C-alpha cells in the first residue's frame, strides 16, 4: 500500500515538473564526438477519445500587458433598439464583430459583451496586433451593401450630371441577400474582383432587376458610397455577380469581408483603445522574472537564517508551492497579467506565513517542555485555526473580486479579475502545501 502511494506521488511530482518545464530551451549535450541538443518543452496533448479530439498545450499564457497587443472597447448605441429586441441585437453584434475579427486572422481573440447599468459594451482583445487602426476600421464599419437603379430614363436625359448620380432608386436588393462574397481575379487583366453568390431569394430579385435594366447601369453601393456601376449586358438568372472596380488585392479582400460579415444591427463607437508594443511586455516579463527570483532567494535565505533546519524545510515547501501553482496556471490556463503577478506574489507571502505560523507554534510547544513529536502535533493543530480563518477571508475577498457569476454591479475588468484569480489559486495551493507538505517534510527531515 505504501509502495503504491509512493509511486503515485512520484508520478504526480513528475507530471508537475514536466508541465513546469521552460518553453523551447535548448541545451547542447556533448556525448563523445557527437553533439546532441536537448530541447525542453512542456507537454502537449493531442489525443482522440472516441470521436472528440483533445488538444491541450501547457504553455504560459500572457495577458496583453505582457505579451503586446490591442484591447478595444466599443460602446453599443442602443437608443434605436426596442428593449425586447436588445438581447438579440447585442448577440448579433457580438457575433458579427467576432466574425470580422476572425477574418482579420488574429490568434486567440477574446470578444465579450459587458453591461454596466443601461450601457452595453463590447470588448475585443487582439493579442499580437500592432496596427490597430486597420482593425478598428474593420470592426466598426457598418458596411451595408445596396444595389440601386436609375430612377427613370428621363432623368438621364434631362440633366448633365454624371450617370452615377442618377442611380437613386433602391432596388430592394441588399447585402442580406448575398450568400457569399469572395475575391476572384479577372481572367484577362488579372485585376482583383469581388464575386457575389446570391441566396435563392436574392437570385430571383437580382434576375428581375437585371431583366428590367438591360442596357442600363446598375449601381453597387457600400454605405451609400458608389463602388461600381456596371452596365447590365443581359438578364442574370443564375444568381452570380461580380463587382469590378480599381481594387488592390487588399481592398478587394476587405470588401469581401465586409459584405460577408454583414451589417451591424446597431451602431457601435470606439471608446477605449490600448496598444502595448511587444517590446515593452518582453522587458517587463524579463525584469519581473529576475526580480521574482531575487526576491524569492532573499525570502529563502531569511527563513533559513532565522529558523535553521525548519527554515530549510519551509524553503522546500515554498519551492514545491511555486511549482504546483505554476503548473495550475499553465493547466487551467490562467492568463498572466501584471496584476495577476501581484496576486501571486501576495499569495507567496501568505504561503510563507502558514509555515511561519506553524513553526512559531511548534517552538512555543517546545518551550512548554513538550516532546518534539507532541510539539509538532500540537503546533500544527493550533496553527490550523489561524491559517484556516485567515485564508478563508482572503478567499472570500478573491471570490467577490473575481465575480464568477459576472454580476454587473461588480468589477468585470480583466485587471481586477486576474488579480483575484491568481490570489485565490495561490492561497488555495498554499493551504495544501502549508498543511500537508510541510507536515510530511517535517516528519521526514526534522525528526
Amino acid at each position: 500500500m505504501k509502495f503504491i502511494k509512493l509511486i503515485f506521488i512520484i508520478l504526480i511530482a513528475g507530471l508537475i515538473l514536466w508541465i513546469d518545464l521552460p518553453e523551447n530551451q535548448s541545451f547542447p549535450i556533448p556525448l563523445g564526438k557527437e553533439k546532441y541538443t536537448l530541447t525542453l518543452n512542456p507537454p502537449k496533448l493531442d489525443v482522440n477519445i472516441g470521436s472528440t479530439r483533445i488538444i491541450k498545450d501547457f504553455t504560459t499564457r500572457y495577458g496583453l500587458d505582457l505579451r503586446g497587443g490591442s484591447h478595444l472597447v466599443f460602446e453599443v448605441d442602443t437608443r434605436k433598439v426596442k428593449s425586447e429586441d436588445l438581447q438579440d441585437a447585442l448577440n448579433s453584434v457580438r457575433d458579427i464583430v467576432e466574425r470580422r475579427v476572425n477574418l482579420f486572422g488574429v490568434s486567440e481573440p477574446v470578444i465579450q459583451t459587458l453591461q454596466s447599468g443601461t450601457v452595453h459594451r463590447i470588448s475585443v482583445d487582439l493579442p499580437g496586433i500592432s496596427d490597430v487602426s486597420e482593425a478598428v476600421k474593420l470592426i466598426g464599419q457598418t458596411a451595408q451593401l445596396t444595389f440601386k437603379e436609375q430612377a427613370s430614363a428621363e432623368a438621364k436625359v434631362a440633366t448633365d450630371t454624371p450617370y452615377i448620380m442618377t442611380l437613386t432608386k433602391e432596388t430592394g436588393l441588399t447585402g442580406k441577400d448575398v450568400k457569399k462574397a469572395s475575391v476572384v481575379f479577372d481572367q484577362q487583366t488579372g485585376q482583383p474582383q469581388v464575386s457575389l453568390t446570391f441566396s435563392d431569394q436574392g437570385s430571383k430579385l437580382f434576375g428581375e432587376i437585371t431583366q428590367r435594366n438591360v442596357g442600363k447601369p446598375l449601381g453597387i453601393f457600400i454605405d451609400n458610397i458608389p463602388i461600381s456601376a456596371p452596365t447590365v449586358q443581359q438578364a442574370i438568372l443564375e444568381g452570380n455577380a461580380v463587382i469590378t472596380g480599381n481594387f488592390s488585392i487588399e481592398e478587394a479582400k476587405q470588401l469581401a469581408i465586409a459584405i460577408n460579415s454583414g451589417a451591424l444591427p446597431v451602431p457601435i463607437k470606439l471608446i477605449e483603445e490600448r496598444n502595448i508594443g511587444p517590446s515593452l511586455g518582453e522587458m517587463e516579463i524579463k525584469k519581473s522574472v529576475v526580480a521574482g527570483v531575487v526576491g524569492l532567494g532573499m525570502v529563502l535565505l531569511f527563513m533559513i537564517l532565522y529558523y535553521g533546519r525548519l527554515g530549510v524545510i519551509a524553503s522546500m515547501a515554498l519551492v514545491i508551492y511555486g511549482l504546483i501553482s505554476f503548473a495550475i496556471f499553465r493547466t487551467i490556463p490562467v492568463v498572466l497579467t501584471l496584476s495577476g503577478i501581484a496576486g501571486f506574489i501576495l499569495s507567496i507571502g501568505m504561503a510563507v506565513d502558514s509555515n511561519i505560523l506553524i513553526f512559531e507554534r511548534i517552538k512555543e510547544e517546545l518551550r512548554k517542555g513538550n516532546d518534539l513529536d507532541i510539539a509538532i502535533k500540537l503546533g500544527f493543530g493550533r496553527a490550523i485555526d489561524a491559517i484556516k480563518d485567515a485564508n478563508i477571508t482572503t478567499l472570500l475577498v478573491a471570490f467577490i473580486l473575481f465575480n464568477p457569476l459576472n454580476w454587473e454591479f461588480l468589477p468585470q475588468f480583466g485587471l481586477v479579475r486576474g488579480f483575484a484569480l491568481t490570489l485565490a489559486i495561490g492561497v488555495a495551493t498554499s493551504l495544501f502545501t502549508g498543511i500537508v507538505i510541510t507536515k510530511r517534510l517535517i516528519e521526514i527531515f526534522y525528526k
Partner: protein
Amino acid sequence: MVNFLKYRRLYFLISLMVIGIGIFSITRWGYRYSIDFVGGTNLEYQVKKGEDIAEVKKILEKNKVETISINQNGMTLSIRAKALTPEQSAAIEKELRGTLGPYLAVLRSETVGPTLGEETVKKTIVASAIAIVGILIYMSFAFKSLNFALAAIVAMVHDFLIVVGIYSLLSHFFRAEVDTLFVTALLTTMSFSVHDTIVIFDKIREYKSAGMDDDVNHYANKALTETLVRSLNNSMTIIFMLLALILLGGSTIKFFILALLIGTITGTYSSPFVATPILVWLEKRKKS
C-alpha cells in the same frame, strides 16, 4: 511579556498623524489621475537618448494634438494628450519615425473615454462593501463575537486611509498616477490587513476561550508578545519580494509595487497597534 497596550495613546497619535497628513495632501493637492479615470491618450515610444523634444512638439502641434505633457526619461518618450483617434496616432507615429529615425519603437499607445474610470471606482467600492460585509459575517461566526470582526474592519479602513493618503503625496511629489493598478493595490492591502489581524485575534480567542484569565488587557498583551515575531517575519518576507520588484522590476509597475509596500507595512502595523487596542476597548465596554 511586554505591555504593548500601555502606549495605546501613542499608537493612536501616530495613526492620526499619518492619516492626517494624507488627508491634508488629498484635499490640498488631490491626485494625478491616469487616463483610466479621466480619459485621454498616452503614447510611449522608445527613442535614442537625448532626443530633441522641441522637434516632437512641432510634430504634435502640426497634427493639432492638445498635448498635456511630454517627457523623456532615458530611452522612453512619453506623451500625454487629450483623446486622439487611431488615425491621428498613426499619423504622429509616422512623422516621428521620419524625424527621429528608424530606432523608434512604439512601446504603448492608449486612448480611453472618460466614463470608464468612474465606473471602475464605483464597482470596486460595491465589491469592497460586499467583501466587508462578508468578512464581518464570517468573523462573527468564526470568533463567536461581533467585536473581533468590527475591530478587524476598523484596522482595515485605517490601512485603506493610510495608503490613499500617502499615495496622494507620491502623486504630488513623484508624479505617481491613480490608475486601475492602484485600485488593485488597495484591494490587496485590505485583504492582507484582515489576514494579518486574524492571526493575532486567533491567539486572543484562544486565551479568551481558555478562560484562565479575566483581564482582557492582560491576555491581549500576552497574545501580542507571542505573535509579534511571526507578524514581523511574515511581513519581512513580503517586503523582500516587493523590494526586489521595485529595485529590479519594470518601470510600469513601480508605483503599483510601492503602493503594495505601503499597504503591507501599514497592514502589519495596524494588527497589533490598531485592531488589538480597539478589540480590547470593545470587549471592556461589553463587560461594563
